Every structure is written in C-alpha cells, then in structure tokens.
C-alpha cells in the first residue's frame, strides 16, 4: 500500500513580524491520499500558500512534521522535488529573453531528463497546453494566460506524482481560467493516482474540481470533506422555491402542515400589479414532506408554476463556520497587511 500523498501532523508556522509574530499555520493536521484532487479553500492570509510552501520544500515549518509520499519535507527534500512540481498563479514569472521551448527545455535538464527526451517532452506539453503557435516566441511577449499555460507545462515536465497548484487561475480572464482548469483535469484523469493539491479562494473552482476540500481560516482547518458533505453540514432542512398561480389563505395554509418548518413570500417576487403569481420560500424538515405540500396545494386549487430546490454554496459553509463571508475576510487580511 503506497504512503499517503500528503501527511501533515501538527504543523505550525510562525512568521516574525512587528509588532507581533504572525501565526500562519496553527497545529494543522491533514491527510491526502494518492489520486485525490484536494482543495484548500480560504480567504487571503488563511495559511493556504504557507502550507504549500512547506510541502514543496520552499519553507521550513516552525513545528510539526509533513511528509509527501512518505518523504519528510525537511530531510528528504531532493526526493520530494523529483516527484512533485508546483505552479503558482497571479505572477508574471519567466525568463523573458528565452523562447517558450528554451525555457521549458531548461527545466527538463533541471529535472534530469536526457537532452533528446527533454525536447520531446517539451514539444508534447507545448501541444497539450495549446502553445504550439507560441513555441518559439519569447516568454516576454506572451499574454498572461499564455504565460500561465507555459507555467503549467513547466509544472508537468517531470510527470509529477503530486502537483501543487497555488491559485493557478488568479488574474486570468474567464475563458483562460476555464481552459486552464480543463487542462488540469485532463492531466489528472490521464493516469490514476496523480494527486493535486489546489489552493484557491474561488468557491466555484473548488466546488467544480475537488474531490475533497479543507476550509482554512486564520491558519486552522475548520472542516474537511467532499463539497457535498460540506454543504450538507449547513443544509439541515430542505429549502424549496415555489411559484404558484395563487394561494388561498396565504402562507399560513402551508405552515400548518406537519413537517413544514417555515414558509414565506419571497420579497419582491410577487407581481404587485396583477398578483397573478405567488413566489415563496419553503423550508421543510426533509424532502419527504414535499408530497404533503403538493397534495395540500392541489386541494386548495393552486397550480404549481415552478419548483426549485435551493442548494447551499461553499460560501454558505464558510459563513456558517467562520461567521463572516469571504469578502469580509479578504478585506480584514488586506487591512492587516496594510
């Protein structure tokens, strides 16, 4: 049985700062199995990037242990570096004077590929990420999206067992971000066992890509689970949005039914001029209560024009866990940085 892709025990990381030290990670424990697409979700300053830096041997922990495929991040740095790679977003990195091919080939040499194998690998990846037309273009002339595709290609040169992605779509437009996400997913699916650790503060990105997510804030992991598991934590009842042609007796008719927690007319949803439809939010103890509601409406002669179940988002999960939204957390982090 292979070791865990990531095994973190009691990791603590404190940065020296004035007027007081900053605790970036506070006794974090984390297990990620080979083959997982694992996400670290949290606002700026939550500690996500610090954890990636430790796991990629760029930074030492203040306390605790961390292993990547069984290799210790402090003692086995060379071994870890041969089986992993990393790509960070939101930065204009690259040797501008080199062409895309030259830069990527240079890294094949750093990763120990023989010259001919290196060029073949470079050309394969350039084609895979869609940079064929730019292959002999200087890095300095690439757009942000193209440069990030090149960085992804660099991150895949050594065919890593585990790929660390630190906000890879940060600063990209919608189309470029989608393209990059597709490339990442295709690469992972191509070989079972490939593992990805993604940090992001884009909720939808984490929801779309990750098998499991850890929600991080102030250096601590607040919850871990699949996106659905996390959402179920905050969805203790079933919530429906209901549109009717009319409702005799108002919402009180429904509230009296067993299993109905609450029913309220949705603000602004009613056509005030004609009152031809009624839109309401209905909170039920569980989905099974919906049958009774539909039966009761039929008895009153109301016609159901629309019915949609409301799903909670990861933002709802974050608010539930932290007590504030992402935007507020980012603003708080920016305030501290300033």
């Amino acid at each position, binding site marked *: 049985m*292979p070791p865990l*892709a990531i095994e973190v025990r009691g990791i603590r990381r404190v*940065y020296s700062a004035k007027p007081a030290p900053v605790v970036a990670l*506070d*006794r974090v*424990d*984390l*297990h*990620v*199995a*080979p*083959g*997982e697409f694992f996400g670290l979700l949290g606002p700026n300053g939550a500690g996500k990037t*610090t954890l990636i*830096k430790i796991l*990629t*041997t*760029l*930074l*030492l922990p203040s306390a605790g242990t961390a292993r990547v*495929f069984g*290799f210790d991040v402090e003692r*086995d740095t*060379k*071994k*870890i*570096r*041969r*089986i992993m790679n*990393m790509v*960070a977003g939101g*930065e*204009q*990195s*690259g*040797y*501008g*004077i*080199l062409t895309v091919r030259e830069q990527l080939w*240079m*890294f094949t*040499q*750093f*990763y*120990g590929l023989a010259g001919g194998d290196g060029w073949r690998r470079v050309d394969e990846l350039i084609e895979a990420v869609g940079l064929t037309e730019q292959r002999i273009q200087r890095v300095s002339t690439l757009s942000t999206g193209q440069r990030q595709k090149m960085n992804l290609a660099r991150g895949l040169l050594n065919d890593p*067992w585990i790929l660390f992605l630190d906000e890879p779509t940060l600063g990209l437009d919608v189309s470029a971000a989608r393209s990059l996400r597709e490339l990442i997913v295709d690469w992972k699916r191509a*070989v*079972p*066992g*490939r*593992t990805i650790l993604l940090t992001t503060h884009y909720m939808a990105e984490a929801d779309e890509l990750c*098998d*499991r997510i850890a929600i991080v804030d102030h250096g*601590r*992991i*607040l*919850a*871990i*689970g699949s996106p659905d598991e996390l959402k179920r934590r905050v969805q203790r009842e079933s919530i429906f949005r209901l549109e009717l042609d009319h409702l005799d007796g108002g919402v009180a008719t429904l509230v009296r039914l067993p299993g109905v927690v609450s029913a309220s007319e949705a603000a602004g949803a009613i056509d005030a001029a004609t009152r031809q439809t009624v839109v309401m939010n209905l909170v039920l103890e569980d989905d099974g209560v919906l049958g009774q509601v539909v039966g009761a409406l039929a008895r009153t002669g109301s016609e159901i024009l629309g019915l949609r179940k409301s799903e909670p988002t990861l933002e709802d999960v974050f608010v539930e*866990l932290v007590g504030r939204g992402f935007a507020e957390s980012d603003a708080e982090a920016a305030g501290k940085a300033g």
Partner: protein
Amino acid sequence: MAVSATSAPVPAPARFDFAKAEGNGIRDFLRTFAVAVRLGWQLEANWTDPLLFFIYSVAKPVSSALILVVMLEVIGGPSGRAFRPFVVVGSALWSFVVSGIAGLAFSILEDRERFRMLKYVYVSPSDFLTVLVGRGVARVGVGLAGAAITVAVGVVVLGVPFDLGSVNWPLFVTVFLLGLWSIVAVGLLMAGVVIQTRQESWSYPEAFAGALFLVAGAVFPLAVLPALVQVIGLLTPLSWWIAGIREALFPGGPGSIGGAGSVFAGAFGHAQPGPLEIVLALMATGAIATLGAVAVFRVSDRRAKQAGLYDRTTGS
C-alpha cells in the same frame, strides 16, 4: 472551531516506482551545470543588444586602463612606463573579478526580483549551488572576453611590451584556474549575503568588489598601504591571483605583493614572492575563501528557508 485529522481519503489504484525519487549523481550534476552555464550565457551576454554588451564588457575595462596609464604618464613621466604592464593587467583582471563576484549574486537577484523564477529553480531537484555556480561561470566567461581584449588593447595601442615566448605558461594556467575558483568562491559568499538582503542588494557585489580593489594590488602595490590593510590584502586570494598572472605574463616585472618595507618583505625576508610561493598562497587563501563561502551560503540558505525569503520579492 478547529477540526483535526480527516474524513476518509479516496483509495488510489496507482503503483508508484520509488526509484523516481532517486537521482543520477554525477550525470545530474553535469546536466545541471551545463544548462546553468547556458542560461547564464543567454541572460548575461544578452546578445540582443551588442552595443550594451560591448560597453559593459570591453569599453569599461579598456577605459579604466587608459585613464590609469594616462595618469601614470602625467605623474611618472617616462619612468612610469615600466609600470604600464602592471596597470593594464590589473585593470583587465579587475573587470573580470567584478563580473565573477557579481555573477552569482545577480543570479539570485534577477531570478527573485525580475524573472520571479527563483522558487521554481529552487524546488527543482537540481542542486541549487550548482545552478548558481554555473550561472556565475557564464558571467565570468563574459568578463574574460573583456579582460583579454583589454590586454590586447594595452599591447597594441599602449605599447605594453608583451612576448608570447616569455610567458610562463604552466604558472599562468595554474594560477588562472585557482584564481577562477577563488573568484567563484567570493561570488558565492556575496550570493549568500544577497539572499538575505533587500532593496539595495543590486549594488552590494560591486561595492564589495570595489573594497577588494583597494587591497588586492590591482592598480598599485600593497606596499603603499598601511600594514593592517596589507595583511588583509595578503589574506585575499585575489591579491595572489593578480600577482601570479602578472608574474606569468611579464616575468620579472613590477610586483604588487612585496617591495621594500612591505609586510611581505618583513615577514619572509625577500622582496617579492616567487612563483611557487604565489601558487601555494593562492591555494591556501582560496581554500579558506571557499570553505568560508560555502559555510556562509549554507547558513544563508537555511535561514532563507526559515524566513521564507526565496519567493519574497522586495520591489527592488
């Protein structure tokens, strides 16, 4: 609310060949060194702007030599002409020294501040020290071209008496290689320093080289300096390197180490060191410089990993 540990991880079907985590020893070293030299050459020489390359690499040392020769002529008159080889060789070699010392440090600064690639190079399995030395050697190569052209200008334009047949080639090759090693060692020391420093780092290597310029006997003999400064000069491998190159190219010409009333003469009982003494002194001081540089670099590397400096740009 803090949640430790995990929910159930997904099992993986893949098998991992842990041989991948092992390196290929000397082959990895050679491959890394070769590609680092190539990268350094492409970045430092910057052939896209030949004029800039020419000015930096050739015109600067040639101009320095010309200025010094003219000063010598004005002050010393015809009797100063005997010192022309001394001045030309010193000026040529010093531009080479600056290139070497700055090369490794600038590699750190450029990769961190300008290209933002330092962290990617650092977390690759290549040996970081090898990458840096390779980059530095490329810069030394550029400096070497400038030094050779400066000596040629000295011979052709300034009439420096140079006879290929009288060159002590064994001494030249030995001293040159030992000196190259020492320059890279001093460069590594500066690289260790600039890993830790911030905004002003770009000027540190040249400032440090400028300080060494005074004590290394590049353009005037150590004997004219106060005794304490002479001792510092004698402990510097660059002083012995320059003296050795001078002795190899112009045997019996004016030397920079000793002289009447010098610390060297007082300590060893003769005016100037012979070729063997120069080689031995260069080996000893070079070895000390190398050990010191590697120690400083290792400590700096560890501290940079503790403080998270490898990907921290400072806006310089």
